[in-house]
């Protein structure tokens, strides 16, 4: 048998050509190019089968359907679920209609969103906040009453603040696809829909905590972390442990030398690629539980990286090892500054690599 390699197809997005395998979606092709060419996504989540198509944040214009049939598509299409064709020409940030529509989508998503970012744990790592900042307007035209819900605990670890939910369905797909028994879902209809267990039921299984990571907003939050800190005060490091349940590969979030949160690792599109168990997430809150690998790569534009890592001072290769050593030794006096912006200066990296993974005293 001959090896049959799939013929790559060529697609042009915002004037940049990229070659991808047939069946790739426009959004994935655009992500391959990267940067602003990648449309925003509020509901699509690559690791979750069936996700996408709902929020309409990623709508793009297809100026030419394919080389064979170069007619434009009549409506904007959801790039996360539309496969590319050879010779397709797509306009994302270069198209006025796309940008106007995106602005409208921000507005729609925000009319029933509480705008309580100052007290929301998700602030600073919120997809909706980023989306609104990048594509929205600074004002609102909405004068009507907003829908509100009571906060609910769904199990010992997770709080559901439905008022913030944008109904992306990611948590539902997560529960469907990585747990044996889903107990929460979308109930009701239209703008009265809500994520709920209907009758009080604890979401209780080894992987339930992952719904927190996939939530694009602060609707599902980690009760062990609630109101403990703001993400921009904290320092994420990649870490792992030998876990019998999951891969044990996590991001461990420090404030000073205290582990205040554990999450799954996210890629540059803010997607978890390996889900983690609740033991790793909620119960391993000591540095001694973890083998620290090094600082988590955070986008430079994120508030989390604000003034933390000075790439100009640290050589990339050296950085990982060095950070592994330092994070157990950081004192965090400067975190209490008014702005909370901390600076990790070179002198704080003590050259004590051999003891990097020693248990805490």
């Amino acid at each position, binding site marked *: 048998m001959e090896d049959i390699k799939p013929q790559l197809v060529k697609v042009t997005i915002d004037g940049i050509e990229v070659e991808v395998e047939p069946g790739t979606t426009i959004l994935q092709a655009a992500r391959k190019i990267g940067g602003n060419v990648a449309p925003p996504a509020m509901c699509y989540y690559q690791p979750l089968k069936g996700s*996408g*198509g*709902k*929020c*309409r*944040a990623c*709508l793009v214009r297809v100026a030419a359907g394919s080389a064979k049939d170069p007619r434009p598509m009549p*409506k*904007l299409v*959801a790039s996360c*679920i539309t496969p590319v064709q050879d010779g397709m020409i797509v306009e994302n940030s270069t198209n006025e209609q796309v940008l106007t*529509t995106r602005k*409208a*989508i921000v*507005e*729609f*998503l925000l*009319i*029933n969103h509480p705008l309580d970012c100052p007290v929301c744990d998700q602030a600073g790592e919120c997809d909706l906040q980023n989306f609104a900042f990048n594509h929205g307007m600074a004002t609102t*035209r*909405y004068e*009507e*009453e907003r829908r509100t819900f009571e906060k609910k605990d769904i199990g010992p670890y997770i709080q559901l603040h439905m008022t913030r939910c*944008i*109904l992306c*369905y990611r948590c539902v797909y997560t529960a469907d696809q990585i747990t044996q028994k889903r107990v929460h879902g*979308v109930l*009701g*209809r*239209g*703008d*009265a*829909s809500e994520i709920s267990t209907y009758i009080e039921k604890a979401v209780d299984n080894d992987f339930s905590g992952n719904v927190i990571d996939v939530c694009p907003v602060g609707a599902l939050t980690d009760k062990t972390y609630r109101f403990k800190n703001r993400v921009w005060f904290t320092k994420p490091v990649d870490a792992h442990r030998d876990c019998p349940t999951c891969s044990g590969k996590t991001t461990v979030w420090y404030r000073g030398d205290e582990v205040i949160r554990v999450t799954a690792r996210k890629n540059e599109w803010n997607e978890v690629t390996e889900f983690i168990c609740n033991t790793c997430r909620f119960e391993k809150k000591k540095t001694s539980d973890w083998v620290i690998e090094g600082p988590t790569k955070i986008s430079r534009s994120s508030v989390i990286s604000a003034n933390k890592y000075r790439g100009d001072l640290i050589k990339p290769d050296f950085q990982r090892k060095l950070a592994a050593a330092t994070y157990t030794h950081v004192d965090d006096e400067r975190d209490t500054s008014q702005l909370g912006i901390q600076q990790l200066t070179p002198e704080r990296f003590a050259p004590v690599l051999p003891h990097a993974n020693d248990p805490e005293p």
Partner: protein
Amino acid sequence: MGKKILLEHINVPGIETYDVYRKQGGYTAVEKAIKTMSPEGVVEEVKKAGVRGRGGAGFPMGMKWSFLAKPEGVPRYLVCNADESEPGTFKDHYLMKNIPHLLIEGMIVSSYALGANKSFIYVRGELMYVIRILEKAIAEAKAAGFLGKNILGSGYDLELIVHPGGGAYICGEETALLESLEGKRGNPRNKPPFPAVKGLYQCPTVVNNVESIATAAWIINNGGDAYAAIGIGRSSGTKLISASGHIKKPGVYEIELGVPVEEFLYSDEWCGGIRDGHHLKALVAGGSSVPILPANLITKLANGEPRLMTYESLSDGGFQTGTMLGSGGFIVFDETACVVRNTWNFSRFYHHESCGQCSPCREGTGWMEKVLHRIEHGHGSMHDIDLLVDVAKKIEGNTICPLGDAAAWPVASAIRHFRDEFEWHITHPAEATQPGAVFKGEMALV
């Protein structure tokens, strides 16, 4: 223009029973198709007939059938959309209740054409009594050998299942209907894939409206060409029109496509004109989702020619001066009707019926309803009018399914044609909120 295809025997006593229906020539189409025609031959006749989907979208039925994928070893399904819920439309209800066998016969012929061995009729749950009528009719047809195993000794098997909905307009959208039929929430699917490739249970599926499927028997008996000869051009055949509102004779009428709107509205054969002492103010020609037109635009085209009851003529002028045939829900408003109140009412309907899956529809329909509610109740401001137009524009075309468009059009068209009435509500809140108050400004009444 009295050609009757579907309602020819409607007044025959007992036509709801198998025996009477059979005596009137019922089930001859099944015999003809199964004994003398190939499935492809049946598809060909329906294509020739040019019958367009009667549920509202107007997509040619034969073409839809020919798109059906036919992979080996995978079952194919025919699903009849009897989830009739569009405000102003009640023709399928009428047809199924009165001549259930016409739909059953159409289902058998259509299923045979598509190679389906299990076909479904999805009826809105509110019509439980109609479901019982259909189930009785199916049992009769089965007893007569037209359903079940080895129909008429041909080796062709068919089982017909009537499936109740649960109260959701959105399930009239074909992919939401399929989700619902699978026992799920009626959330429309993203397309592609289309049902013709991946439909019910991920198998190739055709979804057709009741009225569309009911035409199949006549087409097989008389030939596709004979059907195409009725009507005008691409609007071939007859159409059931559900007439309601301020007319003398509300009801369901079968018309040959091409009847002038004016004639349909005023002739004693049909609506019988506006109720005594009143005048036509506005009209919704194709169910609540199509644009509302004022009296002066509905009966005549821009060039002065009469507007006809066809897909093309009703949409003449685009959304500026035209509307759509839609599902044939013909709602007539006289001068006592308040367009603002009606627009709010329709808007509330779409808000209530939005599935909530995609953000423009979920959030936008509620927004429009709330603003319209304010205007209607005397709390509007002038900029609300432009806001409504803008929100409608932002919903339209950006949603997973056409419910977004259906919610946007009535609002946008009402403001386009009756803006002064909206303004009056805002400038005269005390007057406008009196019970039964209606704008009496300059208006073209006919």
